[in-house]
């Protein structure tokens, strides 16, 4: 570590990885691991924090392996989140096989109270429990789009790129997810929050 460390862009680090630089992958991990965990933990709220960490490792290992095929015109974030989405789905399938989940066509998770990232070190507030309940009431596909939109801040077109689906499909899912959130029986909590903050 030198004092004049030049910050390399994500794309440049991907080139370094493709050339065999292991530490470059470590750097990308330190930059993006939290975002990846945030996504995975929300997309699959039933995952334990330990599983979230495991899957995050898998995501970055896959990222390293894919470095050689990474094209620089592709948005790095989209590339990373696509891998994260695939790994999260893999995990859900494995879990389903293990019988921890029931599955409908949409990979909807049967909520397991007290599971999920609730085991994470952060304290579990009422607010965060409510958010989780609302998320768990959504189908997997809807939740995935919603999380990419609100947690990762991606636009509909970027989400379409990440999930490799049509932008129109993204919009449909996002709108349904949004409507479901606003109509959720716990949505009143937001109304209260608003009435407290808006003059």
């Amino acid at each position, binding site marked *: *570590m*030198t*004092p*004049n*460390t030049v*910050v390399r862009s994500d794309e440049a680090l991907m080139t370094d990885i493709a050339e*065999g630089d*292991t*530490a470059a*992958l*470590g750097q990308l*991990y*330190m*930059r*993006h*691991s*939290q*975002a990846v*965990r*945030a*996504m995975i*933990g*929300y997309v699959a709220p039933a995952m334990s924090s330990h599983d*979230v*960490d*495991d899957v*995050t*490792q898998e995501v*970055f*290992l896959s990222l*390293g*392996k894919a470095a050689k095929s990474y094209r620089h015109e592709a948005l790095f974030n989209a590339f990373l989140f696509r891998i994260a989405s695939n790994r999260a789905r893999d995990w859900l399938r494995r879990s389903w096989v293990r019988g921890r989940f029931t599955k409908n066509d949409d990979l909807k998770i049967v909520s397991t109270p007290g599971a999920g*990232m609730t085991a*994470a*070190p*952060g304290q579990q507030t009422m*607010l*965060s429990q409510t*958010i989780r309940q*609302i998320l768990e009431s959504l189908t997997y596909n809807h939740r995935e789009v919603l999380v990419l*939109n*609100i*947690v990762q*801040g991606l*636009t*509909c077109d970027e989400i379409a790129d990440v999930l490799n689906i049509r932008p129109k499909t993204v*919009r449909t899912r*996002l*709108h349904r997810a*949004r409507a479901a*959130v*606003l109509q959720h029986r716990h*949505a009143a909590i*937001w*109304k209260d*929050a*608003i009435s407290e*903050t*808006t*003059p």
Partner: protein
Amino acid sequence: MTARNEYNVCRDLHKYLDRDLLESARYGFEQHLTECRTCTAAIAQWTTFAGAARNDATQQAFRSPAAEHIAQKQLEASFSQQQALSPWHRRSFAPLMATAVVLVCLLAGAAIFWTRANDPSPKQTAPVPSTVQITRFSMDGSIRQTTGHQGTPIAATPNEQLLATVGKDRVAVAPKGRMVIKRKETTSTLLALNDGWIACQVAKRHGSRQFVTRTQDKRFTVVVKGTRFGVQYQGSSDTRVDELSPLLQVAVTEGIGQVEETQGRTWTVSAAEQLVVQPSGAAEVMPISEQNRTIVSSLLNPSSAPSALTDILAQPNPALDSSDKASPPPALSRGTKTKSSPGVSPGIPRPDGPDASPVSVAEMRQWIGAGRNADAIAVIEARLLKEPGNSELWRLLAESKRKVGDYQGAIVAYQQVIDSASPQMANAARYKMGLIYQNQLHQPANAITQFSRYLADGEPQLLRAEALYHLGRAEYNMGHKASARAHLNEVTEQHSATAAAVQARKLLQQMDL
């Protein structure tokens, strides 16, 4: 506006939130918002939910710097192991010499049972000699001969490595390694390794004679015949064990090794291969890593380059592990680091330079001021492991992370400041977080949260005008025109002489266009 019109405009709500509306339609919808309570409420409700969810996700995804550091090293190790599987790497490992060699690393008081089993010949049951000749190779280049005994510990200081002779076999002990050789029964030798690295070179075996290494918990048994190989085993018991490092590694440089697990699995490890068993139980046979190969030869040929070994052991070693057993020699291991610091991750990055003595907080500030942010981050993160409640360290970490462009990391660190610091310092952190959300991460909803909290705080707000301006700007970005206008007006009216007021006026004019 007719009911039909209103219905149609309300339908644009999603497009508006998706930012899919063209400028004119957007303007039209914002006009509509001044009249339609349903849409206004829905937008407010949605942005509040989205902001809270984002904050919550970020918080739940937070891991301590120490945990992240370990995970990073584990990732790098796994990745380089996978890379070693490529044909390109496979070609680069040439077959090695004969004689059987065992390379063992045990952590945290684990032990190895080293036996000669399946020996049909009664005369081979002769006990190994009770004395052990030990050659001590010091890092300063000196070499000493000492004698050890079966049943008594043989330990290497951090400055030396040992080569012990037990009958025809040789056992090498890496710096800080500690082991006991004792007679277990007439047919076997028990080698109990308490700590550190050892490599064993065993005289060639004949016929059905085997060389057996067993881990203390007896979970793994390594059986070899005329094989040169290494074993790394990580005990599973206490806090010092890095749970992310491989549990067991068996590296074979010549011949074939058979590894058996009590749960029934067996693996065959051929020349130039290594078996890696993860704590999860996942196991894979792959080409031997260059580092493992180097460690074997360095341990068994100590005169060649004694200091090179410690350099290798000091590296985050993908194949071997990154426990503090592998810490570098005295220069860096003085002080309280190593054994007495549970949970401290192994290769805590230390700054370059000759002086590795503790860096004062004042020095850290100087480093950040001088642009040595990467150095500062390394030192601060190491220090935070010991003082996780030190809010000034968190604040400096946040500053340096922000400066190197790690905005998410800065957010996490500022959150720690908010949680641990004095009210005034916490509130300043909210302001800085708001700026990062606003300017770097482009998350206006989060910026609104932080600036609102900053302004709601009872502490004196040195940056009240600025915070109001930024809040107004974030609200404008979110499409909350009414509240944006209110906050910007407050700046221009109550803080009219400030630079923020100038900015606020500009933005208000822009909004009126």
